[in-house]
Each structure stands twice: as structure tokens, then as C-alpha cells.
């Protein structure tokens, strides 16, 4: 163990070398450990985006919470969306510890969300016009999230790993919740099946986009440094293939189609070959120009501004007592 004084006397280069050696040994980094600015910044970017995506991700499903069709579904979807908010809270707590040394708080993250500096996941910018969309979000969007999050369970940043362990356990229930809604519709009336088919068709490009653009051999500097730091271990395309292998057979087995006539499984390459979604559209969507981006951001910002007096009151009460 180094003493504080020894570490104080180390040069920046030596600190960096010691840090990378810890990563290589498979050690986990805690919030109070020394870390390079670059590592901290990558984590802040990743975790605050993940946290805000959980919070913004509650909004498309929120549209269906009061309308869920049976008492059982009403209870289940309320619990599910509450979990998503809870995940957002867990992750923002992790992000808050990382930004504290930079003199920032959750308030800064909220403001970054409103100004568009802090992005949230492409899927949560999209329309969810029917009950079947609520099912597809639970089944396939949460299913996709489990795949990306499971990759990070072994992330080098210990507080993130701990949050993800809990989140993944709950996400599995969510995927079952979504699957249950989907199966009921799939086994239902012609109208119900049609509603589901339309939702699958509608969500298909967004699901492909969920994992980010394919690398085609050119891994971005961000991805490369995240892999070097063992923050993540798989590429976008590798994760997307895991998703396709898991869910496409199920979609086809239920008798539903995808808006891609050319899609096939290449046995030799052991991968699905599919039509690329419009990656220019993807860039626009995550920039905040998706079909529901403005509406959902406005909903979040308006409610946040209109309840400012409540947060002020809590802070004031704390000061009076403390």
C-alpha cells in the first residue's frame, strides 16, 4: 500500500501508470481513489447519460401507466416504471460522487439535460402510441438494455458495478413483464395481433440503433479508451448481434415480421445480416430532434421548474433545523 505522502510525491505519469496497472490486475476503482481526469470524464458521461435515460425512459411508459388495461397490469406497470425512476436515482447518486470534486451537483446534470448537453437514449425520443408499444418497450427495449448493462457488470468502476447488479436483477423482471404483455397480445384477437405487429414494425429501427453505430473495424477513440479502462468490454456490433440472436427467433416464432425483407442469418459468419437503419437520423434523434424529444423534455423541464418551490422549501427547512 502506498502512503498518501508517497502518492503525493508521484508524478502524474507515475500515477497514471500505477492506475493502469491496477486496471490490468483487475482491481476495482472506488469513488475516493485517485483516477485520471479522462477516466472520470468517461464515467461521468456514461453514467449520467445512463441515469438520465432511465428517468427520461419513464416518460414513454408513463403515457400508458394510467391506461393499463387490467388491474393486474395497472399494478405491474406502476411498479415497473417506479423501478426505472429508482434506477435513475441510483445512477445519479453514482454520478454525483464523480462530479462532486468538479464542484457540480445533480442540479447541473438536470440543467445539462434541459439544454441538450446531456443526451439520453435514442429509444426514449420515440412515439409510443398504443398499449402494444408499452409491451414492446418492456420486452425488447429492456431486453436490449439488459444486454448492454450485463456487459458492464464487471466494469472497473466499483460503484457503477454495484448499481448495475441491482439494476440488472430488476430489469429481468421488466423484460418478463413486457414479454407477458406481448404474449397476451400475440395470443389475442386479430386486432390485438395487428396492434402488436405495428408496434414491432415501428420499434425495429430504434432497436437496431439502440446499440450505436457499427464500428466496421474503426473503433472510436471513446470506445477504445473505455475498453482500455475496462469500463466496457464489447463493441456496439457485438452487443447488437447478441440481441438479434436472442430475440429474432422469438419474434419470428410468434409469427411477426420485421420491416426488413433482406434480413438473414449467415451460418458461416455466425451473425445476422440486416439492413442498416438511417444513422444520420440516429444522430438527429439523440441530438434531441426525435419525434417526441421536445415534448418529453418539455414535460420534464416544466414539472421541474414548477416544483422548484418545493425543493427550495426542503433546503430551507434543513437549514432551519440544522
Amino acid at each position: 500500500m502506498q502512503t498518501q505522502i508517497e502518492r503525493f510525491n508521484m508524478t502524474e505519469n507515475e500515477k497514471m501508470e500505477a492506475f493502469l496497472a491496477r486496471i490490468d490486475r483487475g482491481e476495482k476503482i472506488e469513488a475516493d481513489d485517485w483516477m485520471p481526469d479522462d477516466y472520470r470524464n468517461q464515467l461521468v458521461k456514461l453514467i449520467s447519460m445512463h441515469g438520465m435515460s432511465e428517468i427520461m425512459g419513464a416518460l414513454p411508459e408513463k403515457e400508458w401507466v394510467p391506461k393499463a388495461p387490467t388491474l393486474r397490469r395497472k399494478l405491474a406497470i406502476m411498479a415497473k416504471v417506479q423501478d426505472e425512476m429508482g434506477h435513475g436515482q441510483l445512477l445519479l447518486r453514482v454520478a454525483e460522487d464523480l462530479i462532486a470534486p468538479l464542484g457540480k451537483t445533480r442540479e447541473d446534470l438536470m440543467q445539462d439535460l434541459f439544454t441538450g448537453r446531456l443526451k439520453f437514449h435514442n429509444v426514449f425520443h420515440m412515439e409510443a402510441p398504443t398499449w402494444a408499444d408499452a409491451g414492446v418497450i418492456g420486452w425488447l427495449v429492456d431486453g436490449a438494455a439488459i444486454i448492454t448493462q450485463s456487459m458492464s457488470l464487471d466494469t472497473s468502476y466499483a460503484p457503477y458495478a454495484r448499481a448495475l447488479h441491482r439494476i440488472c436483477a430488476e430489469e429481468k423482471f421488466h423484460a418478463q413483464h413486457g414479454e407477458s404483455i406481448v404474449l397476451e397480445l400475440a395470443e389475442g384477437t386479430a386486432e390485438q395481433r395487428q396492434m402488436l405487429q405495428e408496434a414491432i414494425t415501428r420499434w425495429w429501427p430504434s432497436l437496431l440503433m439502440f446499440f450505436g453505430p457499427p464500428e466496421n473495424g474503426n473503433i472510436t477513440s471513446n470506445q477504445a479508451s473505455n475498453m482500455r479502462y475496462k469500463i466496457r468490454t464489447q463493441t456496439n456490433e457485438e452487443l447488437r448481434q447478441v440481441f438479434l440472436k436472442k430475440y429474432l427467433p422469438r419474434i419470428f416464432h410468434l409469427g411477426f415480421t420485421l420491416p426488413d425483407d433482406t434480413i438473414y442469418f449467415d451460418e458461416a459468419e455466425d451473425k445476422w445480416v440486416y439492413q442498416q437503419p438511417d444513422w444520420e437520423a440516429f444522430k438527429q434523434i439523440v441530438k434531441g430532434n426525435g419525434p417526441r424529444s421536445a415534448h418529453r423534455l418539455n414535460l420534464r423541464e416544466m414539472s421541474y421548474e414548477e416544483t422548484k418551490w418545493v425543493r427550495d422549501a426542503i433546503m430551507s427547512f434543513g437549514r432551519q433545523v440544522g
Partner: protein
Amino acid sequence: MGDNVRVENVEQAKQNQEYAQALADLLFQLADDDFILAYRGSEWLGLAPHIEEDVAFSSMSQDMMGHAVMHYQMLEDLGLGKADDLAQLREAGAFRNAILVERKNGAGEYNDNPHYDWAYAIVRSYVYGLYKQVRLESLLQSSYAPLALISRKMLTEHRYHLMHWQVWLKQLANSTKEARQKLETGIARVWEDAGELSSLGQNADNIVRFGLIAGEELLRQRWLANTKDIFQKAGLSWPGEPGVPTERGRLGEHTADLGQALATLSEVYRLDPVAKW
């Protein structure tokens, strides 16, 4: 059947038509109060003042919805129809909730420019919760054993809700001038409707005669005494006797707000009530 009656199960209840009718009337009040207020709570999802409260509020709405489901299930057991149909296919005039729980959370719709009032949400939840506490405690002695049993289970959850709202009331009453003003406005609005909560509706005499629950006046006195005590501890002045709304929800008279709530909450189910969802 009359005084000191004890009904062990639904089969026994069905043997006396008058008893079953009184029981059903009470169960509709219990179920509809929790169902509609839980619905209003669910509209708040994603809009609460901070994320921690969003999670807590949602959790309490789920508990309430869960309580409503248990009561609707008891009505189904009495042979009054499927629980899902009772919750989602009845017309507004068949609902027996108090007007207080059906009022909108504020201007706008839950997904379209909601200008919701957190002070009103807190006061409504707390004042209703305090009445629910008294009601559940009385139901522990209910002549209908299954109702006494589930009321005990509900009370254990409900106590945490009251603790939660108590913290909010205390904090908002003793913080900024703005919060205090909003809280007092919220209290005044809740007070316009709160007096109806303790009503047991048109079948009140039979409900009480059969020992299903204590009388209206007793429930009301206990509830107001508790509420007065809590207002005093929070440093709030007592607003006096609570008023009653023009429409009497316990008699099946409702505002347009309930119509809006029912249209929304049953929108998907009504696409095909025979289908499985």
C-alpha cells in the same frame, strides 16, 4: 342478523340479501376511494418534485391500488361481476368514491401540459390518509371477518404512508413563506370537499346496524380529532369544520373530473373487454 353478528365468509354473507347489499355498498366506497386516488397518484409519475419522491409517491399509489384490487375482488366474490369490469366498465354514476379523491391534480392532462399542484397533492393524500386510518381501525372490528382480516394487512402498509405525509406537512409548513402559502391554499381547497369522506352513503343505517363499520359521526370525530392534533403539531391553524361538495360522490353524483379519469383509465380495456389483456 342484527347486533353482534359475525359473518365468517362470503357464502354466509350471501345468505342475507340485506346484509350482502350493505356490505357491497361499503366495499364500493372503500374500493372506489383508493382506486381513483391511486389513479390520480399514477398521473403524477415522472412529475414529482424530486426523483426520490417520485419513487416514494409511486410506491404509495401502488399500495392504494392494491387495496382497491382486494376490495373489488371481494365484490367479485359476492357475485357482482368481474373485478376488472367493476373497476373499468361502470359508468360514473355507479361510483361511490368521495368527490375529494376524484379532483384533478391541477390544470392540464397528465401527459399534456400538466400544471400539477404539489401542495394540494400532499394535503389531499394526508387528509384522506388520516380518514382511511380511522376507517381501517374501525374495520378491524367489522362483522365481516374477511374485511377485518384484510384491513389489518392494509393498516401495516398505511402507517408508513402517514409517516411520509407527516414529514412533508411539517417541512412545508415550516420552511419558506411561499411554501406556507401554497400549503394553506391546498388546505383550503381540500377542506371544501373533505367533509364528505366520513359519509357512508344511502345505505348508512344498514351498514352500521350490521356492524360492518362504526357510525359516521364516530368516524368523523376520531378523524377530525387526529387531524386537528397533527395540524397543531405542524404549527398550522385549524380551518374549522370541513365543507361538503355540491355533488355527493357517495350517492353516485360526480364531477366531470371523474368522467375524465374513467375514460382514461379504461381506454385500452374498453377496446375489447372480452379479450384477454
